[in-house]
């Protein structure tokens, strides 16, 4: 009996084109749109070497240290370099700047000078480089004049050394990526769309919600068994859908979920159960029409997604700073934050907390559904 109901409910779910669209195709389409929108943002952040020119005059040729410094920043190291330098006469440099082929040119004449056409980020970088070089050179000259012994003790290396004490790195050893959060909330939203299946299954077995449900209730079938089979069918279908969406995000769009995929899949499964039971919960409590219930599910899921930062990533921070409890009551946030925790943190404390709260939510939704379903007679049909 259980297998009979399970298999037929699974057939009903898989053949429901409308809900399959919302649960499978809609998140995929939205992910593609996100990819199109965010790929431009990340492209804008890619650093491109700055084109500059240096006047190849007598003073420059004599300044070996400066030549060495320029060489250091215009040679590719780790696949990137700061400047793309051309060496030319002053007239040519002026023309190159005028034609917009370079951001600025440097010339040595009683010191090092910079000529630029506009003020912008690249011009600031060139100027910062020159200031840094001149400051270091002046320091060395002073040390050499006042304390030449110090030079023997490796002071030059110490002064010239540039060290970053901060490095952006994900503790899970994943490449840091700020836009993944959008995809995480999208997948979390897709998990919660499992609520449509939950609603459908309650509709199919509740005598006061549909004629089909009344027929099931009139049959010699234990209602709880019918519910368990229907619920399992909904979870199976939604889990399969979520895995397809997850694979699409990883392999087609290249979204990075870190290197702990087993935990990611576990999150998807718990999120799916939470989504499906959320649908059964809304469906069993409300006596409104199916359309109103679907509207309620769409509306609340979109609100959860918005509060989790799907439309504006700053929202998550606002919630965390002002009403942190809301973050813990929002299933979409819990799912997305679990992905986030797996991606950015090496430990699992934060992740486990999220997952436990999510699982508890699923249990509460399921328990309430169970308690209401247990009632076998209706006041009205």
């Amino acid at each position, binding site marked *: 009996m259980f297998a009979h109901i399970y298999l037929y409910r699974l057939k*009903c779910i898989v053949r429901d084109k409308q809900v399959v669209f919302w649960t499978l195709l809609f998140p995929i389409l939205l992910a593609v749109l996100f990819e199109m929108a965010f790929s431009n943002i990340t492209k804008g952040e890619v650093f491109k070497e700055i084109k500059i020119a240096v006047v190849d005059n007598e003073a420059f040729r004599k300044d070996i240290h400066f030549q060495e410094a320029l060489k250091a920043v215009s040679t590719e190291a780790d696949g990137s370099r700061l400047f793309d330098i051309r060496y030319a006469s002053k007239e040519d440099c002026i023309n190159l700047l005028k034609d917009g082929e370079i951001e600025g040119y440097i010339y040595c004449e009683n010191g090092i000078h910079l000529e630029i056409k506009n003020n912008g980020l690249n011009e600031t970088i060139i100027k910062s480089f020159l200031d840094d070089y001149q400051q270091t050179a002046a320091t060395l000259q002073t040390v050499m004049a006042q304390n030449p012994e110090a030079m023997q003790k490796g002071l030059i290396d110490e002064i010239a050394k540039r060290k970053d004490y901060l490095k952006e790195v994900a503790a899970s050893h994943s490449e840091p990526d700020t836009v993944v959060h959008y995809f995480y909330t999208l997948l979390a939203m897709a998990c919660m769309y499992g609520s449509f299946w939950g609603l459908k299954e309650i509709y199919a077995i509740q005598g006061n919600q549909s004629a089909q449900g009344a027929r099931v209730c009139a049959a010699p079938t234990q209602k709880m068994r019918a519910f368990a089979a229907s619920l399992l069918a909904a979870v199976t279908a939604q889990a399969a859908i979520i895995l397809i969406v997850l694979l699409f995000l990883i392999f087609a769009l290249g979204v990075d979920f870190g290197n702990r995929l087993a935990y990611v899949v576990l999150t998807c499964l718990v999120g799916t159960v939470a989504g499906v039971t959320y649908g059964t919960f809304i469906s069993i409590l409300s006596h409104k029409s199916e359309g109103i219930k679907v509207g309620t599910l769409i509306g609340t899921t979109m609100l959860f997604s918005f509060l989790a930062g799907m439309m504006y990533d700053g929202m998550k921070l606002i919630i965390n700073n002002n009403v942190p409890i809301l973050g813990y009551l929002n299933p979409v946030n819990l799912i997305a934050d679990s992905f986030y925790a797996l991606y950015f943190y090496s430990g699992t404390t934060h992740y486990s907390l999220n997952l436990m709260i999510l699982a508890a939510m699923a249990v509460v939704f399921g328990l309430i559904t169970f308690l209401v379903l247990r009632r076998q007679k209706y006041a*009205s049909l």
Partner: protein
Amino acid sequence: MVIKVENLVKRYGDLIALDHFNMELHEGEVLGLLGPNGSGKTTAINCILSLLKYDKGNIEIFGKPMSPDAYDIKRDIGIIMQNVAVFEELTVYENTDYFCGLYVTDKKKRRALVDEAIEFVGLKDFKKFYPKKLSGGLLRRLNIACGIAHKPKLIILDEPTVAVDPQSRNNILEGILRLNKEGASIVYTSHYMEEVEQICSRIIIMDKGKTIAAGTKDELKSMIKAVEKVTVEVYQPNEGVLTGIRSLNNVISAEFDGEMLVVKCGKGSHNLMMILEHLKANDILFGKVYSEPPTLNDVFLEITGKELRD
């Protein structure tokens, strides 16, 4: 006794849907529950099936008290709902198999039962069709197949012919009689008196949640004074004609329905001749003439003072 309902009371707030309703269904009977919309027929059925809570009363099926978890009783009941209760995503075969599977777990046995039910309702050529591809009549037949595939001893049909074309309606009614011949006891609710007259061996007429009359159709018709309805087309209808007719012996009532003079007569012979002779004698021109025995509507009208289809 297949069904015994005693003093069933069901309230929706202040509205009394069933008011000490009583009903008995004997083995092999086709019992008709006849009443206008809102008379409590479907509520009674839902209470009998233990789908609805009721305030008072006793319900026994096959001699045992009915309850939601009386699975041994439910196993022998087939239900055909007023609304078509099938899944859009399943084919004709799958729908029948799904609902049959709630009663019969043996796959082999079930396959044979499902095939038999589909053939019974004449949907053999539509096995792989989805419900949305079926006409209204075929959909109703599928609804019936889903309710009878497990070969129940008791079949409850709640207005199964609503919005069905005449051909499909006849097909459904013939099918019900065949099911009865095969041994099923049947409860049939409808507000179509012709259907109830056609197939039911006993009839309960309901109004406002109460039984207002019960018996065979002849017993019901004998309960009322009028035993013959004479209808005459009169070319110049006027109050004088009515006064004359009403003064005749055996005439219970006389009314004009447009140009049609409708006369209800009590027990007696030659009522028609008597009326026609009166019209001739008074030089009243008349055309078509009909004489018919009373209908269940007349029974309902005489008992409640209103039309069955109001």
